[in-house]
C-alpha cells in the first residue's frame, strides 16, 4: 500500500472560528494508480492535497506513506519526504523565473546533496523525457505555457518520486496544450508512476482511472472506472 489515510481530520483556526476542513477521511491508494480528486471549492480538496503532499500535517488521524507514518513528522523530516517521495506540479508552474530550465529541473537534487555533474546528467534526462531536450538553457519567460508546465513535470520527475501530485495542472493552459500535458501524464502513468490529480474539471478527471469526490470535508463518492 502506497498511501493509507485513517480518519484524517484537519481543523483550522480562522480568527475566533474553527474551520473543519476535513472531517474524517479514509483513503487507500495503491502504487501505479491514476487518481483524480474532485470537489467544489470549500470541499477540502486543497487541504487533502496539502496533506498528501506532506506540506502539512493532520489535526488527527494517521497518514502512512510508503509504510512510514508521516502524520507525526517534524518539518525537516517532512522536507526530506517531499524531496524524495513527492513530485509537485502546480497550476501556475512555479518555476524560478531567473533560472534556466535545467537549473529549475535539478533544484530538488540540490537539496539532497547530489553532486553537480550527476545533477546535470539527470536534469538533461528528465527534460528529454518531457520533450524539451532542446530547451535546456531557456528561461521560463522564453518558453510557452505548455513548455513551462513540461519543465515543471520534469522537475517533479527528477527524484523518481513515489507520487506525482498535480494541482490543476491544466488550469493555466489552453485546451490543446492542456491535452498535451494530460497525454504526458498518461505516458508517465503507463511507465509505472502513481499520479494524483486535483481538479474541478470533469473532462480532465476523465483521464484518470479512479475519481474521488469530496464534499464538506468528507469523501462523498469514490469510484473506479
Amino acid at each position, binding site marked *: 500500500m502506497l498511501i493509507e489515510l485513517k480518519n484524517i481530520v484537519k481543523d483550522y483556526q480562522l480568527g475566533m472560528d474553527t474551520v473543519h476542513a476535513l472531517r474524517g477521511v479514509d483513503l487507500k491508494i495503491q502504487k501505479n494508480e491514476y487518481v483524480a480528486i474532485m470537489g467544489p471549492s470549500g470541499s477540502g480538496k486543497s487541504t487533502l492535497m496539502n496533506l498528501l503532499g506532506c*506540506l502539512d500535517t493532520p489535526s488527527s488521524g494517521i497518514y502512512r506513506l510508503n509504510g512510514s507514518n508521516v502524520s507525526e513528522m517534524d518539518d525537516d523530516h517532512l522536507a526530506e519526504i*517531499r524531496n524524495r517521495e513527492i513530485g509537485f506540479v502546480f497550476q501556475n508552474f512555479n518555476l524560478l523565473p531567473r533560472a534556466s530550465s535545467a537549473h529549475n529541473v535539478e533544484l530538488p537534487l540540490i*537539496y*539532497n546533496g547530489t553532486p553537480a555533474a550527476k545533477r546535470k546528467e539527470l536534469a538533461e534526462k528528465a527534460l528529454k523525457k518531457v520533450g524539451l531536450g532542446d530547451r535546456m538553457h531557456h528561461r521560463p519567460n522564453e518558453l510557452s505555457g505548455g513548455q513551462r508546465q513540461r519543465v515543471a513535470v520534469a522537475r517533479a520527475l527528477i527524484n523518481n518520486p513515489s507520487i506525482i501530485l498535480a494541482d490543476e495542472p491544466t488550469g493555466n493552459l489552453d485546451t490543446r496544450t492542456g491535452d498535451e500535458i494530460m497525454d504526458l501524464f498518461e505516458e508517465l502513468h503507463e511507465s509505472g508512476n502513481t499520479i494524483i490529480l486535483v481538479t474541478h474539471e470533469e473532462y480532465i478527471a476523465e483521464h484518470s482511472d479512479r475519481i474521488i469526490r469530496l464534499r464538506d470535508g468528507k469523501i462523498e463518492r469514490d469510484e473506479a472506472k
Partner: protein
Amino acid sequence: MQVQESFYIALDVIRTHKMRSFLTLLGVIIGVTAIIGMQSLIEGFQKDMQEQMEQLGSNVFQVQRDPVMMGGGRHRDQEKKRKNITLDESDAISQYCTSVEQVGPEAWHFGITVKYKDKKTSPVMVLAGGQSAFFPNNGYFVEQGRAITDTDDQYNRNVAVIGMDIVDELFPFQNPLGEEINVDGRHYEVIGVIEKQGGRFGDSNDNRVVIPLNTFLKYYGNRERSLNITVSVKDPAMMEAAQEQVIGVLRAVRKVPPGEPNDFEIWTSDSLMERFNNMTRAVRIGAIVIVSFSLLVAGIGIMNILLVSIRERTREIGVRMAIGAKRRDILFQFLMEAVLLSEIGGIIGILAGVGIGQLVALISPVPAAIPVWTIVIGFFFCSLVGVIFGVYPAAKASRMDPIESLRYE
C-alpha cells in the same frame, strides 16, 4: 544545501537588483571608507611623528616649565603659576647630577626675519639661544664652520650658526661663513651652518638661527623668560636614574615641598610619543564609534532590503520548500545574501578608503600608511554586520508556511 548554490543565488539577486543593492551597500561603503581612510592617515601621521621625535636622541631628555601638551583640568591654574626655569637651575643640574653628560639650557624666539645687506628672509625663522650642548642634544650637526662654544657664550659674542633655509634665502650663490646677518637690528657673524634637517607637515627644521645663550638673554631679556634644558645621559640605560637625579636637584633648588607635585616637566622622545599615541588613540576610538554607528545604519538598510526581497520571493521560498528545502536551507540562503551584500560593500569601502588615504597623502604633507589589521578588522566587521542584520529576515523567511507561500501572489 550546498554553499555554492546559496552563493550563486545571492550573487544573482544582487546582480539583478543592481541599483537597489548599490544603495544598500552605500552605507557599508561609506562606513568602511571612513574608517580605513582615517586609520591610514592617523597611522601615517603617527609614523612620521615618531621619526621626527627620534631626533631627540634616546639618551636625551628635556626639562621645561610648562607641560608639553596642555592637559587641562584641575592642575591648570597651578601650572600657570610655575616659576621660570633659570640658568642657575641648569648649572645646579650639571654640578650635582652625576649621571648627566651634557646640560644644554636654551631659549627660543619665534617668527623673526633675518636680513643680509638688502635681502631679507620671510618672517618665519626661529632664533635660539644655546650653549655648546645645544647642538648634540638637539641632534644638529654643524656641517660648515663651527658650533657655538662656551667661550662664545661667556663673552656674549655676536655670532650665529644658521640653518639651510636661511642659507637658501640669503646666500644662494655664496659662502655664508664670515658674513654678517642682522636680526632685530643686531648684527651677528655667521660662524657655522647646520646640516639639512628636513621638515614635517610644512614645518621646517632648517629655519634656525642659533646664537650664544648669554647673548640671547642680553637682548631678549631673562627676567620673564623660562629656559628649556636638554640633558644628555652618558648611557641610555641610565635615563631613568638621571631623570630622578634631575628631579631631586630641581625640587631642592626650586624649594618644592615634599608631597607636592613637580612644578616643571620632564619629557623624552619616548614619553612624548606615548602621550601622542594616547591622544591619537582617543581619535581612533572616536572614529571607530562613529563608524560603528554608520555600520549600524548600513545594517538596518541591509535588513530592510532583505525583508523586501523575502516578500518579493515568497513564492520562490514556497517552491523551494515544496521540493525539499529544509528550514535551515532557506535560512542559510538569505544569510548568505546579507553577508555577501555587506562584504561587497566592505571590499569597495576598503579600496575607496585606501584610495582616499593615498590621495590625501598626495596633495598634503600628511603621509599615509595602511595598517593591514584595519583592513582585516574592517572586513570582519562587515561580515559581522551582514550576519547580525541578516539573521532576523533570514529566520523570518525560514519560518514561512510553505502552503501560504505557494499561494502568495
